[in-house]
C-alpha cells in the first residue's frame, strides 16, 4: 500500500484540527441515526458491491457489527468510498466515523496522522503465485526466476528485501496496472507473481484456468489490515475495538448467529457474560447490555464473517492461516470479557 507525499502533508495538517475539536463520536453517531463507514472502491472479499447491489465483505461486516451494537440494526450504516490517497483526510474531516478499508497498520501511520489503528481485522502478508506445472513448492526455489510486480507499491521493495536476505537472484518485471501484470504472468512472461496473499487468492480468478496456479506458503511481509478511528476519542476507540473482540470471543465460545438465541440459556459463564445475561458490559461503552448479542445475532461471529467473505464459503477460498484463533494455532486473540 503506497502513500503519497500530498496525502501525508494534508493529513498532518488535519491532525491538529481533528484532535483539537471536541470529540464525542458516539453521541454524533446516535444523533445522526447511522454510522458512517469509510471503505475502498472495491476490493474482492473486503468491500465490494454484491449481486443485490449492497456492500458486502469482511470490512463491511465489521461496520455493520458496530451499527448493530449501537442501533440494534446492522443496516444503519452508510458507506463512504474513497481512494487510498484521501482515506485519512476522510476521518479528519469527520466524513466517516470509522475507516475499514484494507489499511495496513504501520507505526508512521499510527503516530503521525492523528489517527488510531484499532484492530487487525485480517492479517495479510505478501506471497507468491506460480504456475503449477513448474513444480515449485517454496519461495526459496525461486532463485533466478522472473517476477511480475505491480509498479510503485511496497510490494516491489518487500520482494527485493526478501530475495536479498535469502541470497537469491531474480528478475523483476513491473507493470502499471494489475490487469497487465496478470496477463503477462498468464502468458508465461514471468515465472511468479507477487502481491498481498488475499489479493493473489482473489485475483487468481482473473486467470483463465485458476487451478493451474498455486500460492506458495511463504509470507514475506506483515500487512495487518486494520480498522482506524480518529485520535482523541477513547470511548469510540473502545467501542470499535470491543465490537471486534466480541466477535472473536463469540467464535471461541462457539456462539454463532445460528445458535445465539439458544446460547442465551447457556450455563457457561463466559457465554452468559458475552451475551449480557450476566453482568452489564455495555453501559461503560455507552451501549445497551445486550450489545454483543445484537452483533452476533445480526452479523455473526468472526468465523462466520471470514468464511462467507474470504474463506471457504466464498469464491476466494482463503485458508484461515494466521487469522485462526489463538487456540487453533493462529494469532487472533481477544482479551476476556469479564
Amino acid at each position, binding site marked *: 500500500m503506497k502513500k503519497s507525499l500530498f496525502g501525508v502533508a494534508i493529513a498532518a495538517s488535519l491532525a491538529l484540527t481533528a484532535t483539537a475539536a471536541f470529540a464525542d463520536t458516539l453521541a454524533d453517531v446516535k444523533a445522526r441515526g447511522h454510522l458512517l463507514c469509510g471503505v475502498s472502491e472495491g476490493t474482492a472479499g473486503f468491500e465490494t458491491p454484491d*449481486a443485490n*447491489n449492497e456492500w458486502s465483505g469482511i470490512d463491511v461486516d465489521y461496520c455493520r457489527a458496530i451499527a448493530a451494537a449501537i442501533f440494534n440494526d446492522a443496516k444503519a450504516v452508510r458507506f*463512504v468510498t474513497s481512494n487510498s490517497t484521501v482515506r485519512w483526510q476522510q476521518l479528519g474531516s469527520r466524513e466517516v466515523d470509522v475507516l475499514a478499508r484494507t489499511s495496513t497498520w504501520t507505526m508512521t501511520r499510527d503516530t503521525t496522522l492523528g489517527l488510531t489503528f484499532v484492530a487487525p481485522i485480517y492479517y495479510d502478508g505478501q506471497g507468491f503465485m506460480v504456475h503449477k506445472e513448474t513444480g515449485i513448492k517454496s519461495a526459496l526455489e525461486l532463485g533466478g526466476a522472473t517476477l511480475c510486480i505491480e509498479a510503485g507499491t511496497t510490494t516491489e521493495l518487500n520482494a527485493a528485501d526478501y530475495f536479498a536476505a535469502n541470497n537469491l537472484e531474480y528478475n523483476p518485471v513491473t507493470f502499471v496496472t494489475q490487469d497487465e501484470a496478470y496477463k503477462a504472468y498468464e502468458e508465461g512472461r514471468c515465472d511468479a507473481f507477487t502481491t498481498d496473499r488475499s489479493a493473489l487468492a482473489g485475483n487468481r*480468478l482473473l486467470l483463465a484456468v485458476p487451478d493451474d496456479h498455486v500460492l506458495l506458503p511463504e509470507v514475506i511481509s506483515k500487512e495487518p489490515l486494520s480498522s482506524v478511528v480518529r485520535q482523541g476519542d477513547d470511548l469510540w476507540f473502545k467501542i470499535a475495538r470491543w465490537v471486534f473482540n466480541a466477535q472473536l470471543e463469540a467464535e471461541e465460545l462457539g456462539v454463532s448467529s445460528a445458535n445465539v438465541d439458544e446460547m442465551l440459556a447457556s450455563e457457561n459463564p463466559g457465554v452468559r457474560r458475552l451475551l449480557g445475561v450476566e453482568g452489564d458490559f455495555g453501559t461503560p461503552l455507552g451501549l445497551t447490555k445486550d450489545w454483543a448479542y445484537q452483533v452476533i445475532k445480526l452479523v455473526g461471529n468472526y468465523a462466520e464473517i471470514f468464511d462467507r467473505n474470504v474463506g471457504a464459503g466464498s469464491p476466494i477460498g482463503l485458508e484461515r492461516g494466521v487469522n485462526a484463533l489463538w487456540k487453533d494455532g493462529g494469532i487472533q486473540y481477544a482479551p476476556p470479557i469479564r
Partner: protein
Amino acid sequence: MTDTSYQYVRHTEAPKLPPPGRSTGIIHWLRSNLFSSVSNTILTIVTVIFLSWLLPLLYNFLIGRAVFTGTMDDCRVETFGACWVFITGRASFMFYGFYPMTEYWRPNTVFILGLLLVIPLLMPKAPFKLANLIAFFVVYPIIAVTLLIGGVFGLEHVPTEKWGGLMLTLVLSVVGVVGSFPIGILLALGRRSNMPIIKTICILTIELWRAVPLITVLFMASVMLPLFVPSGFTVDKVIRAMIGITIFYGAYMAETIRGGLQAMPRGQFEAASALGLNYWKSMIFIILPQALKYVIPGIVGTFISLVKDTSLVSIIGMFDLLNAINAAGSDAAWASPTKSFTGYAFAIGIFFVLCFSLSRYAKYMENRLNTGHKR
C-alpha cells in the same frame, strides 16, 4: 443554295456515350478520394494496413470470441474475447449504482420524463416552447429531485451516496450543462461590462476557476470544504461535486461566449442602442442570439468535455459510470480474465453515444442557424 460541298450531314443527335471509365463509378471515386495524389495514396495504403490489422482484432474481441450467454465460468477461458455476461449480469449496478433495486422505477421515470421534455425543446418546430421551457427548467427539477431522493409522499428516502452508475453520470452531466451555460453568459457579459467592480469580480472568478484543474476543485469540494464549515453542517457530497463542476465549466463557457461577443461587429451594438433598446434588451434580442451562434462549436466542445469529465468524480469516491463498471467487477464472483477490458469497451460505447449525439445535434443547429455567414 445547295449542300453539295458536304459529304455527310447528320440529322439526328448522336447517341450519348457513357463517360470514360476513369471518370465515373467506383474507380473514379477511388481515384478522386483515395488516390488523388502521392501523399494521399500513401495515407490510404497506411490506413488500409492499419485497419486490416485493427478491425479483425476488434471483431474477434467484441464479437468473434466473445461470450454472450452463460455464466461467468464460460468467460474463464484462454481465448481473448469480451465477456458480455459480465455486462448483462451487472447491468443494474452499472446503471443505478447502489440505488435500491425495488425503486428503479423512480430514476426510470425521471429519465423518460426528461427525454419527453427535452426532445420537443430541442426540435425548433415543436409548439408550446414557453410552456415546455417552464416545464423543463422549473417543474422538472422539482419532480426529479423529489423522485430521486424521496423521503416524502411515502417514497423511501434514498441518500445521494446510493446514486451511481450511468444515472449519476447523467445527473451530473445534465446539471452541469444546464447550470454552466447561464453562468457562462453572465460571466462573459460581466467581463465586458463597463462597471469596474462587476468586471473585476467576473475576471477574478473566471481566471481563478480556469487556473485550477478540475481534480483539484473536486478534492477541495470533497475533502477540504467540510473542514472549513462548522461541524454538523454538511452539504451533500453529490451537490458539492455538482457545484464544483458547474462553476468550473461556467468559467470555460464564459470565455467561449466572450469569443462570440468579440466577434460581433460594433455596428450591431450601435444599432441596438440607436433603436433605443436598453442593455438587457439589446443583449437578449440583438447581441446574444448572434454571438452564441458564432460559437456553437466551442460551446458544444465544452459540453462534451464536461460530460466526459464527470468521470473524474470517481477520485472523490463517487460511482459514476466508469467507476461503477470497475467496482461491479471487484467481487470475486465476477472475476474473469477479460472482464476489465469488456467493462471499458462498454464504457467507451456509452460515452460515445452520449457525446456523439451531442455533437450531431450541434451540427444540425449550426446548419439551421446558418443564415448567411457560413464560416
